[in-house]
Protein backbone atom coordinates (compact mmCIF):
# COMPACT_ATOMS: atom_id res chain seq x y z
CA UNK A 1 0.00 0.00 0.00
CA UNK A 2 1.28 3.44 -0.83
CA UNK A 3 2.26 5.84 1.90
CA UNK A 4 -0.32 8.36 0.68
CA UNK A 5 -3.09 5.79 0.95
CA UNK A 6 -2.06 4.90 4.49
CA UNK A 7 -2.09 8.57 5.41
CA UNK A 8 -5.55 9.07 3.96
CA UNK A 9 -6.88 5.99 5.76
CA UNK A 10 -5.49 7.24 9.05
CA UNK A 11 -6.90 10.72 8.44
CA UNK A 12 -10.35 9.41 7.67
CA UNK A 13 -10.30 7.19 10.74
CA UNK A 14 -9.38 10.18 12.89
CA UNK A 15 -12.18 12.22 11.29
CA UNK A 16 -14.73 9.57 12.18
CA UNK A 17 -13.37 9.33 15.73
CA UNK A 18 -13.78 13.08 16.12
CA UNK A 19 -17.34 12.80 14.78
CA UNK A 20 -18.15 10.02 17.23
CA UNK A 21 -16.64 11.95 20.13
CA UNK A 22 -18.66 15.04 19.20
CA UNK A 23 -21.91 13.08 19.05
CA UNK A 24 -21.52 11.01 22.18
CA UNK A 25 -19.30 13.06 24.45
CA UNK A 26 -21.10 14.14 27.62
CA UNK A 27 -20.72 17.86 27.75
CA UNK A 28 -19.75 19.36 31.11
CA UNK A 29 -22.53 21.08 33.02
CA UNK A 30 -22.55 24.84 32.77
CA UNK A 31 -24.87 25.22 35.73
CA UNK A 32 -24.09 28.27 37.80
CA UNK A 33 -24.86 28.89 41.40
CA UNK A 34 -26.63 32.24 41.14
CA UNK A 35 -30.13 32.30 42.51
CA UNK A 36 -32.94 33.09 40.13
CA UNK A 37 -34.38 36.59 40.27
CA UNK A 38 -38.00 36.71 41.36
CA UNK A 39 -39.18 40.10 40.34
CA UNK A 40 -42.66 39.40 39.03
CA UNK A 41 -44.70 37.65 41.66
CA UNK A 42 -48.41 37.36 41.98
CA UNK A 43 -49.54 38.31 45.46
CA UNK A 44 -52.75 37.15 47.04
CA UNK A 45 -54.02 38.93 50.08
CA UNK A 46 -57.15 37.52 51.52
CA UNK A 47 -59.11 37.86 54.70
CA UNK A 48 -59.91 35.07 57.05
CA UNK A 49 -59.08 31.65 55.71
CA UNK A 50 -60.26 29.26 58.32
CA UNK A 51 -61.53 26.29 56.35
CA UNK A 52 -59.53 23.09 56.20
CA UNK A 53 -57.28 22.30 53.27
CA UNK A 54 -58.42 19.72 50.79
CA UNK A 55 -54.86 18.89 49.87
CA UNK A 56 -52.43 17.71 52.45
CA UNK A 57 -49.11 18.32 50.82
CA UNK A 58 -46.02 19.27 52.78
CA UNK A 59 -45.06 22.90 52.74
CA UNK A 60 -42.22 23.94 50.48
CA UNK A 61 -38.82 24.96 51.64
CA UNK A 62 -39.16 28.65 52.33
CA UNK A 63 -35.53 29.69 52.15
CA UNK A 64 -33.92 31.82 49.48
CA UNK A 65 -37.22 32.92 48.02
CA UNK A 66 -37.73 36.64 48.40
CA UNK A 67 -41.24 37.97 48.80
CA UNK A 68 -42.60 40.66 46.59
CA UNK A 69 -43.22 44.01 48.19
CA UNK A 70 -46.98 44.54 48.56
CA UNK A 71 -47.13 47.54 46.26
CA UNK A 72 -49.36 47.18 43.29
CA UNK A 73 -52.80 47.36 41.79
CA UNK A 74 -55.75 46.24 43.87
CA UNK A 75 -58.41 44.12 42.21
CA UNK A 76 -61.57 43.56 44.17
CA UNK A 77 -62.54 39.95 44.60
CA UNK A 78 -66.25 40.68 44.51
CA UNK A 79 -67.10 37.66 46.57
CA UNK A 80 -65.24 38.26 49.76
CA UNK A 81 -65.26 41.89 50.81
CA UNK A 82 -62.04 41.66 52.77
CA UNK A 83 -60.05 40.03 49.98
CA UNK A 84 -57.92 41.73 47.40
CA UNK A 85 -55.55 40.50 44.75
CA UNK A 86 -52.44 42.61 44.57
CA UNK A 87 -50.44 42.38 41.39
CA UNK A 88 -47.09 44.16 41.25
CA UNK A 89 -47.32 47.08 38.84
CA UNK A 90 -44.58 45.71 36.63
CA UNK A 91 -46.64 42.57 36.06
CA UNK A 92 -48.80 44.01 33.33
CA UNK A 93 -47.96 41.49 30.62
CA UNK A 94 -50.31 38.71 31.60
CA UNK A 95 -49.89 35.50 29.70
CA UNK A 96 -51.06 31.96 30.20
CA UNK A 97 -47.62 30.48 30.82
CA UNK A 98 -45.85 30.06 34.12
CA UNK A 99 -42.14 29.60 33.72
CA UNK A 100 -40.09 27.34 35.91
CA UNK A 101 -39.02 29.20 39.08
CA UNK A 102 -41.73 31.84 38.75
CA UNK A 103 -42.83 32.76 42.21
CA UNK A 104 -46.40 32.73 43.46
CA UNK A 105 -46.84 34.36 46.81
CA UNK A 106 -49.96 34.13 48.88
CA UNK A 107 -50.50 36.21 51.99
CA UNK A 108 -53.41 35.75 54.35
CA UNK A 109 -54.58 36.56 57.84
CA UNK A 110 -55.69 33.31 59.40
CA UNK A 111 -57.29 32.21 62.59
CA UNK A 112 -55.51 29.94 65.03
CA UNK A 113 -54.71 26.43 63.76
CA UNK A 114 -55.95 27.26 60.27
CA UNK A 115 -54.55 25.99 57.00
CA UNK A 116 -53.45 27.90 53.95
CA UNK A 117 -53.40 26.35 50.47
CA UNK A 118 -52.71 27.55 46.97
CA UNK A 119 -52.76 25.54 43.80
CA UNK A 120 -50.93 26.43 40.61
CA UNK A 121 -52.62 24.72 37.71
CA UNK A 122 -51.81 24.30 34.08
CA UNK A 123 -50.05 21.64 32.12
CA UNK A 124 -48.17 21.33 35.39
CA UNK A 125 -50.43 20.97 38.41
CA UNK A 126 -48.84 21.90 41.68
CA UNK A 127 -50.36 22.61 45.05
CA UNK A 128 -48.91 23.67 48.37
CA UNK A 129 -50.45 23.92 51.82
CA UNK A 130 -49.37 25.19 55.19
CA UNK A 131 -51.16 23.56 58.08
CA UNK A 132 -51.82 24.73 61.64
CA UNK A 133 -50.84 28.32 61.02
CA UNK A 134 -52.18 31.48 62.61
CA UNK A 135 -52.10 35.22 62.08
CA UNK A 136 -50.38 36.78 59.09
CA UNK A 137 -49.09 33.99 56.89
CA UNK A 138 -47.12 34.19 53.66
CA UNK A 139 -46.77 31.19 51.40
CA UNK A 140 -44.17 31.31 48.64
CA UNK A 141 -44.47 28.77 45.85
CA UNK A 142 -41.64 28.40 43.35
CA UNK A 143 -43.20 27.00 40.20
CA UNK A 144 -41.62 23.63 39.57
CA UNK A 145 -41.74 23.60 35.82
CA UNK A 146 -43.06 25.44 32.83
CA UNK A 147 -46.84 25.32 32.83
CA UNK A 148 -48.97 26.09 29.82
CA UNK A 149 -52.56 27.34 30.09
CA UNK A 150 -51.63 28.22 33.61
CA UNK A 151 -53.79 29.84 36.22
CA UNK A 152 -54.03 29.92 39.96
CA UNK A 153 -56.74 27.87 41.49
CA UNK A 154 -57.71 27.42 45.07
CA UNK A 155 -60.21 24.75 45.82
CA UNK A 156 -63.54 25.91 47.16
CA UNK A 157 -62.69 25.01 50.73
CA UNK A 158 -59.93 27.60 50.82
CA UNK A 159 -60.75 30.69 48.81
CA UNK A 160 -63.81 32.09 47.08
CA UNK A 161 -64.01 31.31 43.40
CA UNK A 162 -63.95 34.94 42.32
CA UNK A 163 -60.24 35.28 43.03
CA UNK A 164 -59.13 32.03 41.50
CA UNK A 165 -58.25 32.84 37.95
CA UNK A 166 -55.65 35.55 37.68
CA UNK A 167 -52.45 34.85 35.83
CA UNK A 168 -49.15 36.64 35.88
CA UNK A 169 -46.09 35.16 34.30
CA UNK A 170 -42.64 36.53 34.87
CA UNK A 171 -40.34 37.25 32.04
CA UNK A 172 -37.28 35.06 31.77
CA UNK A 173 -35.19 37.00 34.21
CA UNK A 174 -33.35 33.99 35.52
CA UNK A 175 -30.58 31.97 33.98
CA UNK A 176 -31.42 29.32 31.47
CA UNK A 177 -29.55 26.73 33.52
CA UNK A 178 -32.40 26.83 35.99
CA UNK A 179 -34.69 25.51 33.28
CA UNK A 180 -32.77 22.24 33.25
CA UNK A 181 -35.20 19.50 34.14
CA UNK A 182 -34.04 16.87 36.57
CA UNK A 183 -37.30 15.00 37.21
CA UNK A 184 -38.58 13.30 34.06
CA UNK A 185 -41.88 12.09 35.48
CA UNK A 186 -43.70 14.82 33.54
CA UNK A 187 -42.03 14.00 30.23
CA UNK A 188 -42.48 11.39 27.53
CA UNK A 189 -39.59 9.43 29.02
CA UNK A 190 -41.36 9.35 32.37
CA UNK A 191 -44.51 8.10 30.66
CA UNK A 192 -42.55 5.33 28.93
CA UNK A 193 -40.94 4.31 32.23
CA UNK A 194 -44.39 4.02 33.82
CA UNK A 195 -45.66 2.08 30.82
CA UNK A 196 -42.82 -0.39 31.21
CA UNK A 197 -43.65 -0.93 34.89
CA UNK A 198 -47.41 -1.24 34.26
CA UNK A 199 -49.27 -4.54 34.41
CA UNK A 200 -48.50 -6.64 31.37
CA UNK A 201 -51.55 -6.43 29.11
CA UNK A 202 -51.72 -7.36 25.43
CA UNK A 203 -54.57 -5.77 23.50
CA UNK A 204 -53.53 -5.17 19.90
CA UNK A 205 -52.40 -7.62 17.21
CA UNK A 206 -51.93 -6.51 13.64
CA UNK A 207 -52.48 -8.06 11.22
CA UNK A 208 -54.76 -10.87 12.35
CA UNK A 209 -54.00 -13.00 9.28
CA UNK A 210 -50.38 -13.18 8.16
CA UNK A 211 -48.15 -15.06 5.75
CA UNK A 212 -45.41 -17.31 7.19
CA UNK A 213 -42.50 -15.14 8.29
CA UNK A 214 -44.50 -11.92 7.99
CA UNK A 215 -44.06 -9.24 10.64
CA UNK A 216 -46.71 -9.07 13.36
CA UNK A 217 -46.99 -5.99 15.59
CA UNK A 218 -48.32 -6.19 19.15
CA UNK A 219 -49.61 -3.35 21.29
CA UNK A 220 -50.16 -3.30 25.02
CA UNK A 221 -48.75 -2.05 28.31
CA UNK A 222 -45.98 -3.35 30.53
CA UNK A 223 -43.65 -4.32 27.69
CA UNK A 224 -40.06 -4.58 28.92
CA UNK A 225 -37.05 -3.91 26.75
CA UNK A 226 -36.79 -7.69 26.29
CA UNK A 227 -39.89 -9.88 26.08
CA UNK A 228 -40.73 -13.48 25.27
CA UNK A 229 -43.50 -13.69 22.68
CA UNK A 230 -45.34 -17.02 22.77
CA UNK A 231 -47.01 -18.04 19.51
CA UNK A 232 -48.64 -21.37 20.20
CA UNK A 233 -45.68 -23.60 21.05
CA UNK A 234 -43.11 -21.21 19.62
CA UNK A 235 -41.24 -18.64 21.67
CA UNK A 236 -39.56 -15.57 20.19
CA UNK A 237 -37.52 -12.92 21.98
CA UNK A 238 -38.59 -9.42 20.98
CA UNK A 239 -37.56 -5.95 22.13
CA UNK A 240 -39.82 -2.97 22.76
CA UNK A 241 -38.41 0.55 22.42
CA UNK A 242 -41.45 2.39 23.72
CA UNK A 243 -43.05 0.10 26.32
CA UNK A 244 -46.26 -0.43 24.40
CA UNK A 245 -45.39 -1.98 21.03
CA UNK A 246 -43.12 -4.65 19.60
CA UNK A 247 -42.80 -6.69 16.42
CA UNK A 248 -41.88 -10.29 15.68
CA UNK A 249 -41.87 -12.65 12.68
CA UNK A 250 -44.77 -15.10 12.33
CA UNK A 251 -44.00 -18.85 12.44
CA UNK A 252 -43.41 -20.67 9.20
CA UNK A 253 -46.00 -23.36 9.96
CA UNK A 254 -49.58 -22.64 8.94
CA UNK A 255 -52.36 -22.57 11.53
CA UNK A 256 -54.18 -20.52 14.14
CA UNK A 257 -52.08 -19.63 17.19
CA UNK A 258 -52.73 -18.11 20.59
CA UNK A 259 -50.36 -15.20 21.23
CA UNK A 260 -49.21 -13.95 24.62
CA UNK A 261 -46.17 -12.30 26.18
CA UNK A 262 -44.12 -13.01 29.25
CA UNK A 263 -41.53 -10.73 30.82
CA UNK A 264 -40.45 -9.45 34.22
CA UNK A 265 -43.96 -8.01 34.74
CA UNK A 266 -45.62 -11.44 34.40
CA UNK A 267 -47.74 -12.95 31.65
CA UNK A 268 -50.39 -11.40 29.40
CA UNK A 269 -52.21 -14.69 28.89
CA UNK A 270 -55.92 -14.62 29.77
CA UNK A 271 -57.61 -17.92 28.95
CA UNK A 272 -61.10 -16.39 28.66
CA UNK A 273 -59.89 -13.75 26.21
CA UNK A 274 -57.42 -15.40 23.87
CA UNK A 275 -55.49 -13.24 21.41
CA UNK A 276 -54.92 -15.04 18.13
CA UNK A 277 -53.19 -14.83 14.79
CA UNK A 278 -53.75 -16.99 11.74
CA UNK A 279 -50.72 -17.95 9.64
CA UNK A 280 -51.89 -18.67 6.12
CA UNK A 281 -50.57 -18.52 2.60
CA UNK A 282 -53.56 -16.44 1.54
CA UNK A 283 -54.23 -13.89 4.30
CA UNK A 284 -57.25 -11.63 4.17
CA UNK A 285 -55.90 -8.07 3.93
CA UNK A 286 -56.63 -5.43 6.54
CA UNK A 287 -59.70 -3.32 5.85
CA UNK A 288 -59.12 0.22 4.61
CA UNK A 289 -61.50 3.17 4.59
CA UNK A 290 -61.44 5.35 1.48
CA UNK A 291 -64.26 7.80 2.22
CA UNK A 292 -67.21 8.63 4.43
CA UNK A 293 -70.20 10.46 3.06
CA UNK A 294 -71.77 12.83 3.74
CA UNK A 295 -68.88 14.70 5.28
CA UNK A 296 -69.67 16.64 7.37
CA UNK A 297 -72.58 14.52 8.50
CA UNK A 298 -75.37 15.55 10.85
CA UNK A 299 -76.26 13.61 13.97
CA UNK A 300 -79.38 12.03 12.47
CA UNK A 301 -77.73 11.08 9.15
CA UNK A 302 -77.01 7.62 7.82
CA UNK A 303 -73.38 7.62 6.71
CA UNK A 304 -71.87 5.44 4.01
CA UNK A 305 -68.35 4.14 4.61
CA UNK A 306 -66.58 3.16 1.39
CA UNK A 307 -63.46 1.05 1.44
CA UNK A 308 -61.79 -2.26 0.76
CA UNK A 309 -61.59 -5.70 2.36
CA UNK A 310 -64.74 -5.43 4.45
CA UNK A 311 -66.19 -8.78 5.53
CA UNK A 312 -69.78 -9.94 5.80
CA UNK A 313 -69.94 -8.83 9.41
CA UNK A 314 -67.79 -5.98 10.68
CA UNK A 315 -67.30 -3.90 13.79
CA UNK A 316 -67.46 -0.15 13.26
CA UNK A 317 -65.62 1.65 16.07
CA UNK A 318 -65.84 5.45 16.20
CA UNK A 319 -65.31 8.28 18.68
CA UNK A 320 -69.09 8.12 19.17
CA UNK A 321 -68.99 4.45 20.20
CA UNK A 322 -69.23 1.04 18.63
CA UNK A 323 -71.58 -0.90 16.32
CA UNK A 324 -71.09 -4.66 15.99
CA UNK A 325 -72.26 -7.12 13.33
CA UNK A 326 -72.52 -4.44 10.65
CA UNK A 327 -72.97 -5.95 7.21
CA UNK A 328 -71.22 -4.65 4.12
CA UNK A 329 -72.37 -4.57 0.56
CA UNK A 330 -70.09 -4.07 -2.43
CA UNK A 331 -67.35 -2.35 -0.45
CA UNK A 332 -69.69 -0.07 1.47
CA UNK A 333 -71.05 -0.02 5.01
CA UNK A 334 -74.06 2.07 6.00
CA UNK A 335 -74.79 3.06 9.58
CA UNK A 336 -77.03 5.61 11.25
CA UNK A 337 -74.94 7.81 13.52
CA UNK A 338 -77.63 7.99 16.18
CA UNK A 339 -77.49 4.18 16.53
CA UNK A 340 -73.83 4.18 17.66
CA UNK A 341 -73.50 3.22 21.32
CA UNK A 342 -72.57 6.51 23.03
CA UNK A 343 -73.87 8.89 20.35
CA UNK A 344 -77.03 9.89 22.18
CA UNK A 345 -75.10 10.61 25.41
CA UNK A 346 -72.66 12.82 23.53
CA UNK A 347 -75.43 14.59 21.62
CA UNK A 348 -77.10 15.51 24.92
CA UNK A 349 -74.00 17.29 26.27
CA UNK A 350 -74.97 20.98 26.38
CA UNK A 351 -71.56 22.05 25.04
CA UNK A 352 -72.08 19.92 21.91
CA UNK A 353 -75.12 21.84 20.67
CA UNK A 354 -74.37 23.31 17.27
CA UNK A 355 -70.75 22.18 17.26
CA UNK A 356 -68.90 20.40 14.48
CA UNK A 357 -66.59 17.71 15.84
CA UNK A 358 -64.02 15.49 14.13
CA UNK A 359 -64.89 11.81 14.60
CA UNK A 360 -62.34 9.01 14.18
CA UNK A 361 -63.34 5.67 12.70
CA UNK A 362 -61.85 2.16 12.62
CA UNK A 363 -63.26 -0.96 10.91
CA UNK A 364 -62.62 -4.47 12.21
CA UNK A 365 -63.21 -7.20 9.64
CA UNK A 366 -62.09 -10.81 9.28
CA UNK A 367 -58.64 -9.55 8.28
CA UNK A 368 -58.17 -7.45 11.41
CA UNK A 369 -58.45 -3.78 12.33
CA UNK A 370 -57.87 -0.99 9.81
CA UNK A 371 -54.38 0.40 10.30
CA UNK A 372 -55.16 4.12 10.38
CA UNK A 373 -58.11 5.99 11.87
CA UNK A 374 -60.27 7.75 9.28
CA UNK A 375 -61.48 11.20 10.34
CA UNK A 376 -64.76 12.83 9.34
CA UNK A 377 -66.83 15.64 10.80
CA UNK A 378 -70.19 15.45 12.53
CA UNK A 379 -72.39 18.50 13.05
CA UNK A 380 -74.36 18.30 16.31
Amino acid at each position, binding site marked *: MKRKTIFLLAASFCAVLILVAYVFWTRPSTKKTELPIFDNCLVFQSGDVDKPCYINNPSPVQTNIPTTKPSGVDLSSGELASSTIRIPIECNGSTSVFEKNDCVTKTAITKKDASLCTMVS*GSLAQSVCLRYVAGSVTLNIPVQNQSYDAFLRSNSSVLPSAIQNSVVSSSNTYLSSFLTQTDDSLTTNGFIKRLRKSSLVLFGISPYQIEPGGIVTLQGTGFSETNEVHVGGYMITATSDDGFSLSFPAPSSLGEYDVWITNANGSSQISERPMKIVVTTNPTPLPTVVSVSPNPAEYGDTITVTGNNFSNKNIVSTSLGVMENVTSSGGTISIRLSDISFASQIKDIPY*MKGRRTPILLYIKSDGGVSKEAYSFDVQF
Partner: protein
Amino acid sequence: MKTAKTFITLLFVLIIIVAPLRADALIPPLLPFGGWPDIIPIPCTCSASLWSWFGPLYLAGSVPLTGPLVYVPYATLPLADFLITIPATPHLGAYIPGVQACWMYAVFGCFPLPSIGVMGFVGTGLTGGI
Protein backbone atom coordinates in the same frame (compact mmCIF):
# COMPACT_ATOMS: atom_id res chain seq x y z
CA MET B 1 -7.77 8.86 -8.52
CA LYS B 2 -7.68 5.36 -7.10
CA THR B 3 -6.56 6.72 -3.73
CA ALA B 4 -9.41 9.21 -3.68
CA LYS B 5 -11.91 6.43 -4.41
CA THR B 6 -10.45 4.32 -1.61
CA PHE B 7 -10.65 7.26 0.76
CA ILE B 8 -14.28 8.05 -0.06
CA THR B 9 -15.31 4.39 0.14
CA LEU B 10 -13.63 3.91 3.48
CA LEU B 11 -15.14 7.09 4.91
CA PHE B 12 -18.60 6.04 3.69
CA VAL B 13 -18.28 2.59 5.28
CA LEU B 14 -17.10 4.01 8.60
CA ILE B 15 -19.95 6.53 8.72
CA ILE B 16 -22.46 3.77 7.98
CA ILE B 17 -21.03 1.73 10.85
CA VAL B 18 -21.26 4.64 13.27
CA ALA B 19 -24.55 6.28 12.20
CA PRO B 20 -27.04 3.62 13.33
CA LEU B 21 -25.83 3.89 16.92
CA ARG B 22 -28.09 6.88 17.44
CA ALA B 23 -31.90 6.61 17.56
CA ASP B 24 -34.54 9.25 18.10
CA ALA B 25 -37.51 8.86 20.42
CA LEU B 26 -40.34 6.87 18.91
CA ILE B 27 -43.14 8.57 20.78
CA PRO B 28 -44.06 12.19 20.07
CA PRO B 29 -43.63 14.69 22.91
CA LEU B 30 -46.32 15.45 25.46
CA LEU B 31 -48.70 18.28 24.57
CA PRO B 32 -50.71 20.26 27.11
CA PHE B 33 -54.47 19.94 27.39
CA GLY B 34 -57.22 21.18 29.65
CA GLY B 35 -60.92 20.55 29.78
CA TRP B 36 -63.94 18.99 31.42
CA PRO B 37 -65.16 15.38 31.00
CA ASP B 38 -68.84 15.38 30.08
CA ILE B 39 -70.02 11.81 30.52
CA ILE B 40 -69.31 8.90 32.84
CA PRO B 41 -66.05 7.33 31.59
CA ILE B 42 -66.23 4.18 29.49
CA PRO B 43 -64.15 1.24 30.79
CA CYS B 44 -61.99 -0.28 28.05
CA THR B 45 -62.49 -4.04 28.36
CA CYS B 46 -59.22 -5.10 26.75
CA SER B 47 -56.77 -2.44 27.90
CA ALA B 48 -58.05 -1.74 31.45
CA SER B 49 -58.09 1.99 30.77
CA LEU B 50 -60.81 4.67 30.83
CA TRP B 51 -62.18 6.52 27.79
CA SER B 52 -63.52 9.94 28.60
CA TRP B 53 -65.28 12.51 26.37
CA PHE B 54 -64.09 16.07 26.99
CA GLY B 55 -65.94 19.22 26.05
CA PRO B 56 -64.73 21.86 25.97
CA LEU B 57 -61.24 20.51 25.39
CA TYR B 58 -58.45 23.05 25.19
CA LEU B 59 -55.37 21.90 23.31
CA ALA B 60 -52.27 24.04 22.98
CA GLY B 61 -52.75 27.12 20.87
CA SER B 62 -56.12 26.20 19.46
CA VAL B 63 -59.80 26.99 19.82
CA PRO B 64 -61.84 24.80 22.17
CA LEU B 65 -62.56 21.37 20.78
CA THR B 66 -64.43 18.29 21.93
CA GLY B 67 -63.31 14.70 21.86
CA PRO B 68 -62.13 11.70 23.85
CA LEU B 69 -58.90 11.20 25.81
CA VAL B 70 -57.79 8.02 27.54
CA TYR B 71 -56.59 7.60 31.11
CA VAL B 72 -54.36 4.57 31.71
CA PRO B 73 -54.04 3.74 35.42
CA TYR B 74 -50.43 3.84 36.61
CA ALA B 75 -49.01 4.88 33.23
CA THR B 76 -50.87 8.20 33.40
CA LEU B 77 -49.41 10.13 36.33
CA PRO B 78 -52.27 11.44 38.49
CA LEU B 79 -51.90 14.77 40.27
CA ALA B 80 -54.04 16.56 42.83
CA ASP B 81 -57.05 16.62 43.21
CA PHE B 82 -57.07 13.12 41.68
CA LEU B 83 -60.72 13.25 40.48
CA ILE B 84 -59.68 11.96 37.07
CA THR B 85 -62.40 11.36 34.44
CA ILE B 86 -65.11 12.50 36.88
CA PRO B 87 -67.64 14.50 34.84
CA ALA B 88 -67.76 18.28 35.35
CA THR B 89 -64.32 18.30 36.98
CA PRO B 90 -61.65 20.56 35.49
CA HIS B 91 -58.65 18.62 34.20
CA LEU B 92 -55.24 19.94 33.24
CA GLY B 93 -52.29 17.93 32.03
CA ALA B 94 -50.46 16.68 29.00
CA TYR B 95 -51.26 14.02 26.44
CA ILE B 96 -49.57 12.06 23.68
CA PRO B 97 -51.50 12.55 20.45
CA GLY B 98 -52.48 9.65 18.23
CA VAL B 99 -51.71 6.80 20.64
CA GLN B 100 -54.75 4.50 20.87
CA ALA B 101 -54.87 3.23 24.45
CA CYS B 102 -58.52 2.17 24.79
CA TRP B 103 -59.22 -1.27 23.30
CA MET B 104 -62.42 -3.30 23.49
CA TYR B 105 -62.64 -7.06 23.33
CA ALA B 106 -64.34 -8.75 20.39
CA VAL B 107 -64.55 -12.38 19.26
CA PHE B 108 -60.93 -13.10 18.34
CA GLY B 109 -59.06 -10.12 19.68
CA CYS B 110 -59.48 -6.47 20.48
CA PHE B 111 -60.21 -3.30 18.53
CA PRO B 112 -59.48 0.35 19.41
CA LEU B 113 -62.14 2.74 20.64
CA PRO B 114 -60.61 5.79 18.98
CA SER B 115 -59.41 8.79 20.95
CA ILE B 116 -57.38 11.95 20.41
CA GLY B 117 -54.60 10.54 22.54
CA VAL B 118 -53.51 9.16 25.89
CA MET B 119 -52.94 11.29 28.98
CA GLY B 120 -49.31 11.36 30.13
CA PHE B 121 -50.13 13.18 33.37
CA VAL B 122 -53.19 14.99 34.63
CA GLY B 123 -54.28 17.06 37.60
CA THR B 124 -57.83 18.03 38.44
CA GLY B 125 -59.76 20.65 40.36
CA LEU B 126 -62.89 19.85 42.28
CA THR B 127 -66.12 18.71 40.67
CA GLY B 128 -68.12 21.70 39.52
CA GLY B 129 -65.00 23.88 39.48
CA ILE B 130 -63.99 26.25 36.75
